[in-house]
């Protein structure tokens, strides 16, 4: 038999040097990244969960906003490939101004990293950092703008969990909740439409920006039933309770009543539809607690896939740059 798997053909163009968002990545490059993720996932099933692929590289994690799981996932991904890791975590308030961001980077950059994983409350901060360092930058979330590795692991989870739709043609994804404040939603819209899926965004009027509906392949609705009907995957977004104070949401009761992803609503979806959530979950608020533990739920798989997908991202950006 031929050694080449169907997706192993080399993509025709060079991938971008940074991963700030998914705009510069072609569907082919994303699928190649997923093929690499398959290999990385296999490494993580072995007794020795480590390969020397990134030996001699240093990965810096710069988190200007709280995060545990994303940072741990990136650090695991770096160490599983024998890269060294240096970590910097700052409380959001002390280093949010442009000038101190530069100073912080300059200080850490003096310790020589090849790639930085950056999370920052300000949209565009990772792009700004690319101007101040020669290292590659991976955006781990900037404001409401983008969270590309979350979208990649979501789509990868779909690709590996929904047989017959790995090519994403004809796939319908529903994203339900506070779309307006969600970088996860924005990155998923960008990625899934690029891969050939259609995306339905659903939320209360105040949390559903009209401009997202202007993208090809995207539809907006205020009715969950409409969003979920026939969908292959339903993604509930975390309700950021801190937003409640701003008056954008009437009440928890209304969220539950009108926008909760639950078993009753899932009956309208495709019979094999997956239930997704980027975490952390507010059980029985945006997602019914029982549904989160249902076999249809791939929430834990999303977390597990974070490591191989981020391994593939680090590998592709670092080895591709050598």
């Amino acid at each position, binding site marked *: *038999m*031929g*050694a*080449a*798997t169907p997706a*192993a053909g*080399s*993509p*025709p*163009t*060079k*991938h971008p040097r940074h991963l700030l968002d998914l705009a510069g990545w072609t569907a082919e*490059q994303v699928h*190649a*990244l997923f*093929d*690499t993720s*398959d*290999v*990385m996932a*296999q*490494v993580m099933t*072995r*007794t*020795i969960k*480590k*390969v*020397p*692929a990134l030996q001699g590289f240093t990965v810096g994690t710069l988190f200007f906003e709280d995060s545990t799981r994303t940072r741990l996932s990136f650090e695991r991904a770096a160490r599983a*490939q024998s890269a060294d890791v240096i970590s910097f975590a700052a409380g959001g308030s002390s280093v949010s101004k442009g000038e101190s961001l530069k100073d912080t980077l300059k200080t850490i950059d003096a310790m020589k990293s090849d790639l930085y994983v950056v999370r920052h409350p300000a949209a565009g901060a990772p792009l700004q950092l690319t101007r101040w360092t020669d290292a590659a930058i991976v955006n781990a979330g900037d404001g409401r703008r983008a969270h590309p590795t979350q979208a990649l692991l979501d789509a990868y989870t779909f690709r590996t969990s929904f047989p017959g739709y790995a090519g994403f043609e004809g796939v319908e994804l529903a994203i339900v909740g506070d779309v307006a404040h969600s970088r996860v939603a924005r990155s998923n819209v960008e990625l899934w439409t690029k891969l050939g899926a259609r995306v339905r965004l659903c939320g209360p009027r105040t949390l559903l920006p009209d401009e997202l509906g202007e993208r090809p392949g995207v539809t907006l609705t205020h009715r969950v039933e409409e969003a979920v009907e026939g969908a292959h995957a339903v993604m509930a977004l975390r309700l950021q309770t801190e937003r409640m104070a701003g008056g954008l949401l009437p009440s928890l009761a209304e969220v539950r009543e009108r926008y909760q992803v639950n078993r009753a609503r899932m009956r309208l979806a495709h019979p094999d539809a997956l239930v997704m959530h980027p975490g952390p979950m507010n059980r029985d608020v945006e997602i019914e607690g029982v549904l989160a533990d249902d076999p249809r739920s791939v929430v834990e798989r999303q977390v597990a896939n974070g490591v191989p997908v981020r391994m593939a991202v680090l*590998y*592709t950006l670092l*080895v*591709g740059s*050598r």
Partner: protein
Amino acid sequence: MTLNPKATLMDAQDLTRALTRIAHEIIERNKGTDGLALVGIHTRGVPIAERLAELIERFEGTRPLTGKLDITLYRDDLTEIALQPIVRKTEVPFDVSGMRIVLCDDVLYTGRTARAALDALVDMGRPGVIQYAVLVDRGHRELPIRADYVGKNVPTSRSEVIKVRLEETDGADGVELLELVDA
């Protein structure tokens, strides 16, 4: 830089004869097929391992286990990768511990691929014995590595290129010597 064909080193028949001899040698050296497994290194080592397994089955009545090894994550010579690096799946569907493993590849040159393959293999367990079979040994070793089974020894210069073609990957069998020249 262009590649000019220089000589045909092996035709389809030569290639089959060489693999047949190697299959016999493997059986002889390992006293049969007990605990024997052939692991091909991507890309062309994979069909070579399959063919050797087939031949061994024909001679002994038992087919040895086979696997595929991708060594990309273990390489030390990733100097220039033009596009997105491609990593392929490693498929070794058995426990290598205690096994008699024969690594299979098309060409032995610097020995760096074999070194990486050894690292990749021992990360999966502790094989009893690891042997190494290649279709062509072209010399110019950069590491203390040698093959246990060699189809053909070919003295080459560094400006020459060995092109192995296999039915499974290239549509036809044969080994050619080419020369790299400044066009």
